[in-house]
C-alpha cells in the first residue's frame, strides 16, 4: 500500500542536461533564484577578505567618494597578484584551515542554516583566468564547511559575448536538535512503534517511558542543488538565456498526526507529533530571448518547474486504544494513521513583454503571461485500516444493520472507494499588464498602469464512495467516528441524511484588476514631489466577498537641498472596502448542498458567527509613512536613519481588528582612513495585532449565527493583543596596522512578545473553572523571548608576500523562551498527546577557526 513514486526526474536529467548544453541561459535579477552562493563563514562569498588598498581610491582625492544618495563607497581592494599563462592571466585566493566548535554546538538555532562541523574546511577557493586579448574569462569558486554546507561553481565566458555557469550547492536546514521520537523509521514513509509499545494497545506510561528513553536527535532537511546556466549575445541587440537546476531535498521534520481530541476526553483520542519524511526533487527551467533596440524592446520567456515527491503518503502507528463515548459500546481498534504528501506538480509559464519608446521621452510596455499549475497524483485511500472502524454498539464489533456506526475497512481502504483515482487538479493563470511613462519636460514625469490577472480552477472533486453510496470522508484516520457515534465524516441521503460533512473541493478562481496613475514634479534641482493613486479590484469566487476594492494615495518627497543630507519621505493613505460580506460562502462544499439532506432537529447549525470578518476580506483603513535619511556630517562619516510606520484598522467586530507595525533604525559609518572602517547600528521595531473572537455556547448545535444571540452570546466574546517589541544593535571594526588586519563585529537582538487577553465573561474561556489572570477579565501568556549576542574577533597576520594567517573566534549566546514548549523538557507525553520536538532551547556556543590564506 505504500506508494513510492518512481521519480521520473532521474530519467529526465540526462535529457535536461543535453538541453541545457544547447540552450542559452543564466539566472539574473529578472528571473529565477540562485543569485548568490555563499555560507555563514563568509556571506559575501570572498569579498569580506579583500585587503583594502592602502593607496586608497585615487591619487587626486583623499578618502572615499559617496554614492549619489550619499552612502560612502568602500576602499578598493589591493589589485591581485597576477600570474601569466601565455595569453592568459590568472589570480585568486585559496583559504584552507580548520574550525573547532564547543559548547552547545548541536543546538538547532546555532546550526539552523550553518552546518558547523569541527575539522578541516575549505574556506574559499576563488580563481579567475582572463585573456585580455579577446575578453575571455573563467572563474571557479568553492567553499566547503561540511558535507551539508558547501558550494562549488564554475563560470566560463567572454565579456559581452556569452557566459556559461554551473554550480553544485548543499544547504542545511536544521529544524530540531532535541527531537525525541517514539517511532522507528524516521526519514522513511513508515513510522513504526518499537517494543514494548503496541499499536492501539499501549499505556500512557509505556509511551512516556519510550519517549523519555529515546535519545535526542537532530531533524533536518538538506537541499542539494545542481544548476547550469548560459546566456549570450546573439547580436548587439538580441540576447538569449536559459537556466536549468535540479534540487533534491532530503531529511525529516516534525509534523502532525490526528486521532481526534484529547482535551475533552481524558485517556482518549490522539494528538501525535509525527515525523514527516522529506525526499523530493524539483526541476526548474527557464529560458528566453531579449531584444533591446533604440525604439523597441522585447522579452520572451518560459519558466517551468516540476516537483516530484518520492512518497505519496507516510503512515504512522497509533500507540493508544480509543474508547467510545457511548456507554457499553466498543471502539474498533485503529492501529495506523496516514498523512498525504504534497503531490507531484507541474508548472509552466510563458511571458512576453513589448516595450516601445514614445515621444515626450516616454515609453509604453505591454506584458502578457499565461501559466498553468497542475497535478494528477494518484489518490490515497480514505483510510489505512483492516477489519472495521467506528463504534460497535453493545460491544459488538460485527458490522451490519444492527451496528450503524461500524464500518468495514474494505469499503474504504482502497482507491475503489473514491469517485476517481487521481487528483486531476489544475489552475490556469493569465496576466496582462500595460504601463506607460512620459516625461514631457525635464521637470515633470507622468506614469500610469493597468493590470489584469486571473486564476481559473479547472476540475473539482466530489467525495463520493461508489462502493457504499456515501458522501464525505473518514475523519482523522477513523478516530472521530470511533469515539463519537455518527461523527465519522459521512453523509448518506438514506442512512445519515442529517450529517453535515465536507463533500466537495473548493475552487478558488479569482480575478484582479489594478490601475495606477502618478506624477512626479521636480520643484527645482533639489526637490521632487510625487503622487500616485492606485486602485485594486480583487474579485475572488467562493469567498466571503465577491469584490474588494483597495484604494491608495501615495505622496512622496525627495529632498537634496542640503549638501549633507538626502531625504526621502512618503506617506500613503489606504482604504479598502467591498460588496456585502457573506459570512458562510462555503455551504456548497458541504452535504447541506446535496439532495436528500435533512436538517437535524433544531435546524442546521451555523457554520460560524455572522460578525466575523476575515482580515483578507474585511474593510480596512490604513496609513503608512516611510522616511529615509542619509546624513553626511563629515567627509569620512555617514549616518543613515529610517522611520517607518504602517497602521491598519479593520472593520471587524470579530476577527483581526488592528495591525500596526513601526520601526526606527540608525546606522553610523566611519572611514577615518583607507583600510579602516568602523560602524555601529541601533534599531527598534514593534508590532501590535488586535483580534477578537467569541466562543459558542450551545455545544456546536447553535443555529443562530448572530453575535449577541443565544449561541454567540456577548458574554463569550474575548480579545487578544499580540505585542512584539524588538531591539537590535551592533558594531563592526575593520582596521589595518601595517599589514596586520584586525576585524571584529558584534550583533545583538532582543525580541520580546506578549499575548494579552481580556474576555467578557468566563464562558469565553476554554476552561472557565480555572480562570487566571493578572486582573479581572484579563491575563497574559508568559513572554516569548529571543535574545542573541554574537561576537566575532579575528586577526589576519602576514606570513609572506602571498601568505597570511587568519585566526578568529565566533561566539554566540542565545536565550530563547517559547511558551508553546514550556514543560517539554520534563515530559513530551501528556496523556494521549505525544510531542517529538522539544522546541527552541537556549545555548552558548563557540567556534574557533584558523585559516591559511594563499594568494594564488
Amino acid at each position, binding site marked *: 500500500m505504500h506508494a513510492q513514486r518512481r521519480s521520473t526526474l532521474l530519467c529526465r536529467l540526462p535529457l535536461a542536461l543535453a538541453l541545457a548544453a544547447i540552450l542559452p541561459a543564466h539566472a539574473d*535579477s*529578472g528571473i*529565477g533564484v*540562485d543569485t*548568490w552562493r555563499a555560507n*555563514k563563514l563568509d556571506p559575501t562569498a*570572498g*569579498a569580506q577578505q*579583500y585587503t583594502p588598498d592602502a593607496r*586608497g*581610491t585615487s591619487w587626486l582625492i583623499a578618502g572615499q567618494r*559617496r554614492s*549619489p*544618495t550619499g552612502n560612502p*563607497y*568602500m576602499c*578598493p581592494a589591493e589589485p591581485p597578484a597576477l600570474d601569466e599563462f601565455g595569453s592568459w592571466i590568472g589570480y585568486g585566493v585559496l583559504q584552507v584551515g580548520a574550525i573547532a566548535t564547543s559548547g552547545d554546538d548541536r543546538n538547532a538555532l546555532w546550526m539552523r542554516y550553518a552546518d558547523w562541523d569541527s575539522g578541516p574546511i575549505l574556506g574559499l577557493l576563488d580563481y579567475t583566468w582572463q585573456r585580455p586579448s*579577446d*575578453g575571455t574569462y573563467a572563474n571557479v569558486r568553492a567553499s566547503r564547511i561540511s558535507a551539508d554546507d558547501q558550494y562549488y561553481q564554475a563560470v566560463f565566458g567572454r*565579456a*559581452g*559575448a556569452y557566459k556559461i555557469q554551473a554550480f553544485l550547492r548543499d544547504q542545511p536546514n536544521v529544524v530540531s536538535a532535541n527531537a525525541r521520537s517514539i517511532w522507528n523509521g524516521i526519514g522513511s514513509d513508515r513510522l513504526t512503534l518499537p517494543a514494548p509499545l503496541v499499536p492501539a494497545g499501549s499505556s500512557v506510561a509505556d509511551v512516556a517511558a519510550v519517549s523519555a528513553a529515546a535519545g535526542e536527535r537532530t531533524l533536518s532537511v538538506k537541499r542539494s542543488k545542481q544548476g547550469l546556466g548560459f546566456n549570450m*549575445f546573439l547580436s*548587439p541587440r538580441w540576447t538569449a538565456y536559459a537556466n536549468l537546476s535540479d534540487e533534491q531535498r532530503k531529511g525529516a521534520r516534525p509534523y502532525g*498526526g*490526528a486521532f481526534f481530541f484529547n482535551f475533552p476526553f481524558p485517556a482518549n483520542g490522539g494528538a501525535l*507529533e509525527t515525523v514527516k519524511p522529506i525526499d523530493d526533487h524539483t526541476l526548474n527551467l527557464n529560458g528566453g530571448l531579449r531584444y*533591446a533596440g533604440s525604439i523597441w524592446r522585447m522579452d520572451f520567456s518560459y519558466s517551468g518547474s516540476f516537483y516530484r515527491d518520492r512518497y505519496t503518503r507516510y503512515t504512522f502507528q497509533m500507540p493508544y486504544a480509543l474508547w467510545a463515548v457511548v456507554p457499553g459500546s466498543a471502539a474498533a481498534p485503529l492501529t495506523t494513521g*496516514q498523512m*498525504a504528501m*504534497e503531490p507531484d506538480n507541474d508548472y509552466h509559464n510563458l511571458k512576453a*513583454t513589448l516595450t516601445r519608446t514614445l515621444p515626450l521621452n516616454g515609453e509604453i510596455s505591454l506584458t502578457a503571461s499565461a501559466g498553468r499549475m497542475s497535478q494528477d497524483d494518484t*489518490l490515497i*485511500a480514505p483510510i489505512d485500516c483492516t477489519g472495521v472502524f467506528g463504534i460497535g454498539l453493545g460491544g459488538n464489533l460485527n458490522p451490519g444493520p444492527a451496528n450503524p456506526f461500524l464500518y468495514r475497512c474494505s469499503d474504504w481502504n482502497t482507491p475503489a472507494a473514491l469517485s476517481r483515482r487521481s487528483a486531476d487538479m489544475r489552475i490556469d*493563470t493569465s496576466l496582462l499588464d500595460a504601463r506607460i511613462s512620459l516625461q514631457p519636460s525635464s521637470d515633470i514625469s507622468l506614469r500610469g498602469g493597468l493590470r489584469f490577472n486571473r486564476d481559473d480552477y479547472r476540475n473539482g472533486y466530489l*467525495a463520493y464512495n461508489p462502493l457504499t453510496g456515501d458522501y464525505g470522508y473518514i475523519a482523522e484516520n477513523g478516530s472521530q467516528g470511533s469515539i463519537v457515534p455518527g461523527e465519522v465524516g459521512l453523509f448518506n441521503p438514506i442512512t445519515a441524511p442529517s450529517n453535515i460533512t*465536507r463533500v466537495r473541493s*473548493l475552487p478558488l478562481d*479569482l480575478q484582479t484588476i489594478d490601475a495606477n496613475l502618478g506624477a512626479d514634479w521636480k520643484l527645482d534641482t533639489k526637490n521632487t514631489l510625487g503622487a500616485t493613486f492606485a486602485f485594486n479590484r480583487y474579485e475572488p469566487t467562493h*469567498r466571503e466577498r465577491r469584490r474588494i476594492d483597495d484604494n491608495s494615495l501615495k505622496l512622496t518627497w525627495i529632498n537634496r537641498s542640503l549638501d549633507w543630507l538626502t531625504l526621502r519621505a512618503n506617506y500613503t493613505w489606504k482604504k479598502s472596502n467591498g460588496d456585502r460580506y457573506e459570512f458562510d460562502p462555503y455551504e456548497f462544499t458541504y452535504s447541506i448542498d446535496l439532495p436528500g439532506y435533512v436538517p437535524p432537529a433544531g435546524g442546521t447549525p451555523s457554520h*460560524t458567527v455572522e460578525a466575523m470578518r*476575515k*482580515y483578507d476580506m474585511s474593510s480596512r483603513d490604513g496609513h503608512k509613512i516611510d522616511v529615509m535619511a542619509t546624513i553626511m556630517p563629515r567627509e569620512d562619516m555617514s549616518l*543613515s536613519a529610517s522611520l517607518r510606520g504602517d497602521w491598519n484598522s479593520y472593520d471587524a467586530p470579530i476577527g483581526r481588528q488592528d495591525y500596526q507595525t513601526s520601526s*526606527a533604525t540608525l546606522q553610523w559609518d566611519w572611514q577615518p582612513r583607507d583600510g579602516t572602517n568602523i560602524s555601529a547600528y541601533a534599531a527598534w521595531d514593534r508590532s501590535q*495585532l488586535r*483580534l477578537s*473572537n467569541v*466562543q*459558542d455556547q*450551545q455545544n456546536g448545535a447553535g443555529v443562530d449565527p448572530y453575535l449577541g444571540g443565544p449561541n454567540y452570546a456577548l458574554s463569550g466574546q474575548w480579545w*487578544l493583543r499580540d505585542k512584539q517589541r524588538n531591539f537590535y544593535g551592533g558594531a563592526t571594526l575593520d582596521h589595518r596596522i601595517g599589514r596586520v588586519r584586525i576585524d571584529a563585529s558584534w550583533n545583538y*537582538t532582543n525580541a520580546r512578545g506578549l499575548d494579552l*487577553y481580556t474576555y467578557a465573561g468566563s464562558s*469565553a474561556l*476554554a476552561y472557565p473553572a480555572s480562570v487566571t489572570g493578572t486582573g479581572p477579565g484579563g*491575563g497574559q*501568556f508568559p513572554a516569548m523571548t529571543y535574545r542573541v549576542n554574537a561576537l566575532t574577533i579575528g586577526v589576519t597576520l602576514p606570513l609572506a608576500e602571498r601568505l597570511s594567517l587568519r585566526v578568529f573566534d565566533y561566539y554566540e549566546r542565545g536565550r530563547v523562551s517559547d511558551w508553546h*514548549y514550556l514543560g517539554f523538557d520534563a515530559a513530551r507525553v501528556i496523556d494521549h498527546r505525544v*510531542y517529538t520536538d522539544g522546541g527552541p532551547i537556549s545555548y552558548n556556543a563557540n567556534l574557533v577557526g584558523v585559516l591559511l590564506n594563499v594568494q594564488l
Partner: protein
Amino acid sequence: MTTALRSSLLPLLTAVSLWLASASAQAQQSRDALARTLPSSTLTGEEVQASRTRLLAAPGFARARVAGNPQAPDAHAIGEGSCIACHQLEADHFTHTLHALGLHAANKADASIPVCETCHGPGSAHAQSPQTPGLIIGFTKASGTPVEVQTRTCLACHKGGPRDHWSGSVHQRNDLSCSDCHNPMANFSAEGLLAKASINDTCAQCHKDIRIQFNRRSHMPLPEGQMSCVDCHNPHGSITSPLLKTNTVNETCYQCHAEKRGPFLFEHAPVRESCLNCHTPHGSNQNTLLVAPIPFLCQQCHTGQRHPNDLHTAQSLATGAHPDERVMGRGCLTCHANIHGSNAPSGPRFHE
C-alpha cells in the same frame, strides 16, 4: 554628434532615424579622432589594424560609444591613455573588472570603441578644467552629473531584459542612480560589480529595517549567505509590487517551495490567495515566519462552532492545570498538519 541627437528636442523617432542613418560615419569619425589623440603607448595605427584582423568585438561591447554629456556638449574624446595620466590608481583597480576586460578587448578589436569615455563621456573639457563638476559624467554625489544622466548612460548598454521596467519603478521614482548600488570602478563584491560586498549588504544601505528582520528567531537564510534579496526581488523594476520577480507573491515563494504549489485536492483559501496572509517573508519572532503565535494566528479567522473559538490561557500549556493540544507545541497544526492544502481524500480539514 550622437550627444547632440540625444539631447535634441526633436521627436525621438526622428532622432533615432537620423542617428541610425549616420551611425557608420560617426564611428569612422570617432575612430579617426581617437587615433589622433591616443598616446603612443596605446593601440593605434598598424597595431589596431592588425588586431582587427584577428578579433571581432564582443556584441555586448561592439556598439559602445562615447557617452553623451549634456553638460559638456562641445567636449571630445581624448582616449583612455589621457585619462590614465591622472587616474592611474583608478585604472589599477578598474582593470580587473569585467567591464574593463570587455572594453579593453573591444577597443583592441575596434579602436573606435572607447574605454573610460564609454561611461564617463568625452574627456577633453574635463581635462582642461578638472575641478569643474559636470564636465565629465560622474557617478558620485559630488560629481555634478544629474542622476537621470547617470542612469541613462548605464542604460545605453544595459537597457532591456531585467531592467525593462526601470522607468517608473519605485527605485527610479526615488531618484536612485545605478551607482547607488553598483560601483564598477573596482571589484568590491564577488559578483555583480556591487557598491558593497554582497547583494544583501547593498540593499541594506537603505533597507536596514528589513535587513534586521533577518536577525529574528525564524528567518530566511539570508544572513547565512545562502540566498539574496534578488532571489525574490528585482531592484531594477518589475510589474509586481514590491519589485517581485514573478507575477504574484505565491509564485515567488513557489520558486523554492515548489511542494506548496499544488493545486491540492482540498485547498486552504488564504494560503492560495497569498502566503503573506500567515507568513512574514523576512523574519519573525514566531516559528516558521508566522505573523502571530498559534492558535491566535488561526483564531483571526476561525470562529466556527466547537473547538476553534475558545480563549486559552497559560493553563492550557504543559505546565498548566489543563494541558491542551490546541495550544501546546504545534498547536492547531498538530492535527491540521497539512495546512497548506491536502491531497488526501480524507483531508478536507487538513488532518491527513
